[in-house]
Structure formats: structure tokens, C-alpha cells
């Protein structure tokens, strides 16, 4: 990085840090590493937060100015994500819209769609969810069963989406559906922009193993979508969906390495006060080794995000989200397993005097396990790495 660019980044970082600290919600503990419950995230970092970010010129940082963004660099986007994570601010409630739908609208949307939706994403007026998975279309995305029938002026949608994250808090859903009832597999699909506040839509939250209810079943029973809300053309859904997924690049990890390192440091801090076999855990040979293995990996994770940034800046092909996701989930799961081992019987305690910290590791471990399923299973990610990066032949699934 040249010195001018570097000093710009440094001053931008301090600007962002100061702004975030000045606007933290009252009572928010930025030194904590706990996972805030969903209601708290919505209250403090929901629509209002998105709007405040926009007004401060900090939302849609790397979106082009013509689309309502700030026209800043991807490096500056990274700074915002890192600084937010440093204050334990959760990932944006509108993540899928800002990182995936927005850029796809810019690439494939009509001018009308761009004008209608892009600004409302950044202002927090429209929170979006991603309607891809179905009961029979998880890893096998081409097996979509949800259909849309032609009606006057648009489409009537019938079917069920599943594992739809944050649908219960969303205004709209970008959904892949079958617009040609006779079609098979990748043909005859379309991506529709569906309003969720209409009679033909029912959203049912699912209680997850870790106690959260972030994901949902979304039922469509005659939900209406206007012709103007088909993204990228009728029958072109597979290509549009691929574009959407292609934006699921390494950027998701740009703030995560900070979040992750803070959690490890918290764990180490906790360990200084724990005795195992009569010695503090930080002097216990096994834990010293395990902690430093985790520290080394978290540093490599940071380096990998830096390398991804460099590649995106130089417009080299990104390393792929798949690669970073595989590295991250494996590391995250090992770290949480270490936390369970360190806490022993106390890991089960979520609150009260015996709970040694507020990170609720007994449940966070489960959250970590879910990461190798959500957003494309590790098996699918390995297929992608093997087939697209290493050039191995496709085969029976």
C-alpha cells in the first residue's frame, strides 16, 4: 500500500472509531464479547442504526455514488467492519441486502428497480431476507419447488422457503422460484422481489438448537409479485442466483477476524483466573499449547482477509468465500471446543454465580457448529474449492 493511501486509511479509521463510540447505544458495553440476543440487536442496531450510519456517510461505503453509496474503497469498508467488531457491534441486520442483493441489482436490475430499492436498503427502510433454501432444496439448490403462476400484471407465488434467516424482521425477500411449472432443474427459474407484508405470506420462526430463533419457514400462498419485480428476466433465475452468490465473497470475513480474536482474548483472560490440576490454566502446558495454536490460527485468518482485500483491490479473482468460510468455521469450532474444555462443568451454566463469563459457551459452541451448515455446508464449499479452484471433475453428488 502506498503511504498516501495508508495515511488516508489511518485517519479514516480514527474517524470511524470516534463516530461509532460517540453513537453507541446507551448501556452498550463495547468491551464485552457476548452475543447480543436478537431483540437487543434489533433495538440498538436495527433500522435506526442503518439510517444513522447513512446520515453519517458510513452506510454503503463501497457502493458507487450513483447508487446512493459513498464511493469509498473496499479497504475503507473493511475498516468500518473491523472497527464495528472491535466495539462488539453485531453484523448488520441488512447484510444480505448490502452485500449480495444490492450489487446484483446494480448489475442486473432495471433502472426502476435500482431507484426503488437501493436507497431503501441503505436507509434501513427495507430489510431483506434471502429466499433460496427449501425443504427439498438445500445443498441441491436447483431442486426448487416453489412456483409462480402468471396472473394479471405479475405472478402469484406458492410454496415454502426454509432456513430463511431473519425473515420475521424483514420487509422483503429475494426469492428464487419456478416460473415455468413444466421446467426441470436450472431452467425455468426466476428471482422475484417479494413484499412480505401481504396476505399471501406467512412467516413462522423456528427455534434453533442454540435457543435463538433467527431462521424461519416462509409460506407463500398466492403472494403477489408485480412484473416489475422480476430481477434479471423471467427464466433467468439460475444465472441471477449465481450472481447473487458470487457476491458472497470474502468481505463477510473482513470484520470477523476482529470479533474472533476478541473472543479468544476474552477466553484467555478468563483462563488466568481458572485453576486446573492445581495451577492457573495459563500455566498449564496443555492449555498454553491450545491457546497459542488458536492464536496462531486467528492471526492467519486475519492475514487471509488481508490477502483477500489485496486481491479484490487488484481485481484479481478473489480467493472465494468458500475458502475463507472453510478456514473460519473449522477454526471457530476448534476454539469453542477449547472453551468447553477449559470451562469444564461450568460451560453448561449460562447465567448465575457459577457461569464464569457472559459468553454462554455452552450455546456458542452450538452456534459454531451451525456455521459449517449455514450459508452452504462445508461439504458444498469443499466441492466448490475442488471443482472451481483445483479443477476436479464434477461427479455424482
Amino acid at each position: 500500500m502506498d503511504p498516501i493511501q495508508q495515511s488516508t486509511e489511518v485517519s479514516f479509521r480514527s474517524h470511524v472509531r470516534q463516530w461509532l463510540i460517540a453513537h453507541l447505544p446507551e448501556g452498550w458495553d463495547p468491551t464485552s464479547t457476548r452475543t447480543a440476543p436478537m431483540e437487543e440487536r434489533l433495538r440498538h442496531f436495527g433500522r435506526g442504526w442503518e439510517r444513522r450510519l447513512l446520515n453519517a456517510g458510513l452506510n454503503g461505503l463501497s457502493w458507487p455514488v450513483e447508487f446512493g453509496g459513498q464511493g469509498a474503497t473496499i479497504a475503507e469498508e473493511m475498516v468500518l467492519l473491523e472497527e464495528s467488531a472491535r466495539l462488539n457491534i453485531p453484523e448488520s441486520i441488512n447484510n444480505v441486502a448490502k452485500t449480495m442483493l444490492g450489487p446484483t441489482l446494480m448489475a442486473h436490475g432495471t433502472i426502476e428497480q435500482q431507484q426503488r430499492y437501493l436507497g431503501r436498503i441503505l436507509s434501513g427502510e427495507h430489510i431483506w431476507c434471502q429466499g433460496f433454501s427449501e425443504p427439498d432444496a438445500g445443498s441441491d439448490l436447483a431442486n426448487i419447488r416453489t412456483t409462480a403462476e402468471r396472473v394479471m400484471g405479475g405472478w402469484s407465488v406458492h410454496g415454502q422457503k426454509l432456513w430463511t434467516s431473519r425473515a420475521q424482521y424483514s420487509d422483503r425477500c429475494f426469492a428464487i422460484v419456478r416460473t415455468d411449472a413444466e421446467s426441470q432443474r436450472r431452467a425455468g427459474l426466476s428471482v422475484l422481489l417479494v413484499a412480505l407484508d401481504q396476505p399471501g405470506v406467512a412467516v413462522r420462526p423456528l427455534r434453533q438448537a442454540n435457543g435463538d430463533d433467527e431462521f424461519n419457514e416462509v409460506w407463500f400462498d398466492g403472494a403477489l409479485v408485480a412484473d416489475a419485480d422480476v430481477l434479471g428476466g423471467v427464466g433467468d433465475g439460475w444465472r441471477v442466483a449465481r450472481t447473487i452468490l458470487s457476491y458472497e465473497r470474502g468481505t463477510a470475513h473482513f470484520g470477523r477476524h476482529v470479533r474472533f480474536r476478541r473472543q479468544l482474548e476474552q477466553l484467555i483472560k478468563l483462563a488466568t483466573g481458572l485453576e486446573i490440576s492445581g495451577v492457573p490454566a495459563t500455566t498449564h502446558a496443555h492449555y498454553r499449547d491450545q491457546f497459542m495454536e488458536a492464536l496462531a490460527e486467528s492471526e492467519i485468518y486475519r492475514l487471509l482477509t488481508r490477502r483477500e482485500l489485496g486481491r479484490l483491490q487488484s481485481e484479481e479473482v478473489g480467493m472465494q468465500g468458500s475458502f475463507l468460510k472453510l478456514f473460519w468455521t473449522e477454526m471457530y469450532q476448534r476454539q469453542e471446543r477449547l472453551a468447553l474444555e477449559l470451562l469444564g462443568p461450568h460451560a453448561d451454566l449460562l447465567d448465575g454465580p457459577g457461569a464464569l463469563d457472559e459468553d454462554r459457551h455452552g450455546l456458542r459452541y452450538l452456534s459454531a457448529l451451525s456455521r459449517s451448515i449455514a450459508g452452504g455446508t462445508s461439504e458444498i464449499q469443499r466441492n466448490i474449492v475442488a471443482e472451481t479452484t483445483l479443477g476436479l471433475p464434477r461427479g455424482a453428488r
Partner: protein
Amino acid sequence: MKLLLSEEEHDIAGAAGLCFADVTARVTAGADRSAELGIIGELGWLGTATGPPPHGLAPALVAEAAGRTLLPLPFAELGLAVPAALAAWPEGASLLEAVVAGRQAWSPAGVDLLVDGGRGSPPLRAALAAGGWVVSGSAHHVQAAVASTGYLAVAADEEGVSRLFAVAADNVEIEATPNADETCPVSTVTFDGAAGRELPRASVDALSRWGAVGSVAELLGCVEAQRDLAVAYAKERKQFGVPIGSFQAVKHHCAEMHVLVEALRVAVWAAAIHAVEQEESIDHVAVAKSYAGKAGMQVGKLALQVHGGIGFTWEHPLHRFLKRTTRLTSAFGDAGWHRESLARCHLDGLSMP
């Protein structure tokens, strides 16, 4: 920190790879390793860590090429650690010149003492006699790929302090010892009151730091080669009428190797950039060596698994990479030792809450 290769760095990696592949082929066909060291020196590959910092990525890229091509010379030692140690010794200028040119080989001996590698075997000892320092004792796994003009011997003085000495090879006893990684032969060298000239503390640091960077970069080249061999084999080997690489079980092994190799790569690059300039908040050399312990073993295991029986035969190259990887894992400090060195920085001194 820049983690992308410049055009020039691409060229360095490519040129070193071509040169080393030729050397490996010639030595396999019976050429003399000492003569080959001279060729490598003439081309400038032994001097990448001898100038003032920053050294950039060149030292790592050249060592990686040595691993990838299974160069039958201990590159981490002869190509990085020793030249860097000599470069930090003002009186060693002429030695440095001869070593960088590949005309002389000075081999590290007794490095175990610096990285707790002795496993209980006594270290070399140094005593101050009337005419200066003398070194005694036996050092194991000293490189014997090429004949040594002398040794850079790490020895403990009477107070137990590690010191580094240049000891000529005249008065030593050399016993060849069979070793698993036979592409890099080793010997046990016994010193019996051999006179040594002491090198400064900076040379001790340079030897261990660049030895660690070199060994982890060489290891990266080895695991990269194993991944590539396994992927190529998975594309061509057919069972049940299709390439085995179309089976998910095999595909996933390959993807896992890829993640390990590419993650190790950024760690190695960071280690090279910060080999001597440790302004960062974490020791990147220790990070890379820590991860290499795991990545090296895991890639080796998976590459062999993908190859099946053919990979376990002597004529297939895979076992040579496996053995090299195993040796390099513990060279200049194993993962456990490097993690403990991280722990001293990041765990000790933390106050109780």
C-alpha cells in the same frame, strides 16, 4: 503488509523453481551436490537474506521452490540461516562471500540447543582456553549433503549460555548416520576441543530466525507439491470407470489440502517479511511454524491417502516429500516449541482478573 506477489517476485519464484528442478534432476542422475551448490550460488540464490532489511518475499519464495522441487540440499540451512548469520558478523565478510557463492559450505551444528530439540542428548560445550574458545561434544543431524568447510556450532558455555562459533572442519570426526529423508543426508559430528571463533549475538538470532523461516517456507513448497501431485492423480486415476477426483470423499481431501496449503502460504510470507523486523504485535515466524506442524502432517497424510497404494511405493516421489516434510516440521523448533515462545509473550505476565 502486502500479501500479493509483484511481477518481479513471480519471476524470482519461477526462476528459482526452474533452476532447482534442474539441480534435482542432475543430482538424481548422479551429479555431485557440491558442484551443484556452486551453480546455485553463482545464480545468486544463496544471498537473499544477507542484505539489509527489508528482504521482501524473495527468501521465502526461493526456499519454497527448494521444497517444491525437492532440492537435495538443505536450503533453509545453507541458503538462508548460515548466510544470514555470517552477514551479521563483521569479521565474517570473506566467509560470507565464499558461502554465498556456493564455493564453501558452512553447516549449522548443535542448533537443538536453541530450540529445545536435543531431547536430553547433551549439547555441544564451549570452554574458554588459553588460545580462545574450544568446542567439544557431538552434534546430531548435521547436514551431510555436501562436504563442510566448517561449522557454525551452537554450544553452551560453562554458565549454560548459548554461543555460536565458527569451527573449521579440520579436527572433527564425522560419522554418517542413516536418516529417513535420504534426499538430505546427515551425519553426527564430534568436536574434541576444536578451536572456534565466536560470532555475535546477532548471528545467533539470524541463524535461528532465518533457519525457521527457511524450514517453514521449504515445508510450504513440499506440501504444495504433495497437494498438486494428489490433485493431478485424482484427475487421471480411474476407478469404477471414472476419475477418483469425481468422488466427493476424494474431492474433499483435495479441498482440505488446498485450504491448509494456502493458509500456510500467507503465514510463511508474513514470517519472511517479519523475520528480522518484528514491529508487529505477534511473532509471525512462530505463527507460521505453529501452523506448519499441523498443516504439514495433515497434507502429507491426505496426499498419501488420495494416492492409495502407488503413493506408498519407493519409485513414486510422494514418500520423499513426506519425509522431507516430517523433517522440516521440527527443524529450527517444532510447533510446540514455537507455541511456547508465543505463550511467553501472550500468556505470561497477564494479571489475574
